[in-house]
């Protein structure tokens, strides 16, 4: 209701509280189990993929770099899974933060304290986003290591795609935080994953539009990536892992099942930052007006 000065100790206390709540809700345990399953399957899949493709001898004519093709494809899959798991974590770390916690009576004792609603909401987002970013970077690094060990493959760009994925997951967490102000927990979770799905469908439409040379589909995809910039960041990340791969291999990588790679303009990072700030500002405004 009122503006209060930012108190760092109180903000840190809120972040700690958020982590404790996440532990209680077993968010980390669920995501950890999913992550282990994914990485195990990914390692197994990568091992066989590299071995089988090598046996096919596609690179005999030296037209196709089979390691590059296989590596880009499986690592593209890993990036999709990493983003998905990051979206799961980002969403569940922000589930019920406002309306859900208010309905169970968890929020009121905290909100009456003299720290201000904006501080509380931004602190909770900062905590959730930090955990999500660290998680995405960690899974990305492990997947990168597995691909390197199992297939001797290193993407054309190593750091930037990981950062783009982490930023995409942080945007999803921001959208989830905004949804928590207006929706009950279940509705919030459903809405966020539908938005996540809509972004991916937008990316696929763009890919199809590009293949069919359909300006309408490409225009729709472009609008989707502006409205949901996490998708643009994901496409940019995919693009970066094979941006220097040329020739037939490059063309095949672009057509791969987990492609959808699209080079973004220089403004994407700025737009993503502005978009995230605007989403959080909307959440703060909605929270400030909300009767609890």
């Amino acid at each position, binding site marked *: 209701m009122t503006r*209060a000065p930012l108190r760092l100790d109180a903000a840190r206390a809120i972040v700690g509280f958020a982590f404790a709540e996440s532990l209680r809700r077993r968010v980390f345990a669920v995501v950890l189990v999913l992550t282990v399953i994914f990485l195990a399957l990914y390692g197994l899949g990568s091992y066989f993929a590299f071995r089988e493709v090598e046996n096919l001898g596609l690179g005999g004519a030296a037209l196709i770099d089979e390691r590059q093709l296989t590596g880009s494809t499986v690592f593209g899959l890993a990036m999709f899974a990493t983003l998905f798991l990051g979206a799961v974590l980002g969403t569940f770390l922000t589930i019920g933060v406002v309306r859900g916690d208010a309905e169970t009576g968890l929020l009121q004792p905290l909100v*009456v304290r003299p720290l201000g609603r904006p501080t509380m909401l931004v602190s909770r987002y900062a905590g959730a986003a930090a955990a999500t970013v660290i998680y995405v970077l960690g899974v990305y690094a492990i997947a990168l290591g597995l691909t390197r060990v199992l297939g001797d493959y290193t993407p054309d760009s190593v750091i930037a795609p990981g950062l783009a994925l982490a930023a995409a997951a942080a945007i999803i967490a921001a959208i989830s935080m905004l949804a928590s102000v207006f929706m009950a927990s279940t509705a919030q979770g459903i809405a966020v994953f539908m938005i996540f799905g809509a972004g991916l469908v937008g990316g696929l439409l763009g890919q199809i539009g590009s293949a069919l040379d359909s300006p309408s589909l490409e225009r729709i995809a472009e609008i989707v990536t502006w409205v949901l910039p996490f998708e643009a960041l994901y496409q940019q990340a995919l693009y970066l892992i094979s941006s220097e791969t040329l020739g037939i291999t490059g063309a095949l990588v672009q057509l791969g099942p987990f492609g959808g790679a699209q080079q973004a303009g220089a403004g994407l990072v700025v737009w993503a930052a502005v978009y995230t700030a605007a989403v959080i500002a909307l959440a703060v405004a909605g929270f400030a007006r909300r*009767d609890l």
Partner: protein
Amino acid sequence: MTSAFLAEDLRKHYGPKQALRGVSLEVADGEVVGLLGPNGAGKSTLAKIACGLVAPTAGVATIAGHRAGSLAARQAIGYLAELFRFPGCASADEVISLHQRLAGSPGGAGERAELLELVGLADAAAVRVSAMSKGMQQRLGIAQALIGSPRLLLLDEPTSALDPAGRRVVRRLLAEVRSRGVAVLLSSHLLGEVELICDRVAILVDGEVVERGTPAELSSARGVEVETASGTRVIEAAGREDAPRIVAELVAAGERVYGVRVLASTLEDSYLEAVGEQPG
């Protein structure tokens, strides 16, 4: 000196529903004021406006002279909601510690130990909230409301989950905080508790204060019942001190008096009369 809490013509609409219709109320320092009323009467809304959880549609509420909900006002209050929950994985000590940090209280471990002792949870400092009974959680809630020595304590149904022993602890605790000059606005359904604890009582019905006064005033004599040969009659507006005169007058008038009874209403009678005996 400003009142600990002052509400002037406070109104609150939730869509078409009017939760408060011009409530005015004052709580002085060191005073315990009870809010009575059926469910939906507006008691919780009034407490929530006082602590800034709900914005009033019209009217003014101030805490120690500061607008309710402002930073200064929130620094002066302690609040226990009717429906509240603490993180299940946190211990009693950790809950108090978290709220100390949020309140900016410099009390540290000493304050934590004192508050847990005050609510009878000294031995449960390390017990997790998830392992506590509802009554223990409610006492922990009262302890967190007392962090930082607030000037006004807002307690919404603080004894609803407590057993008789727990209620006695809360009664003693409220007497203690009152002696320290803390003002208390206590919302409750338990008329007996209110009668024992509160200096003044306000009865809310449909968002309006329909009755207010001290428990003694609200429990005042309601007449003298006299049984004579011609039947039983009630002389209204008469009290205990009027009984000898009434009997003398009746005897002088030739009536035979068989019995006299001073009718004293309880707070419950006043409450039920005020709310029209509507179920909560």
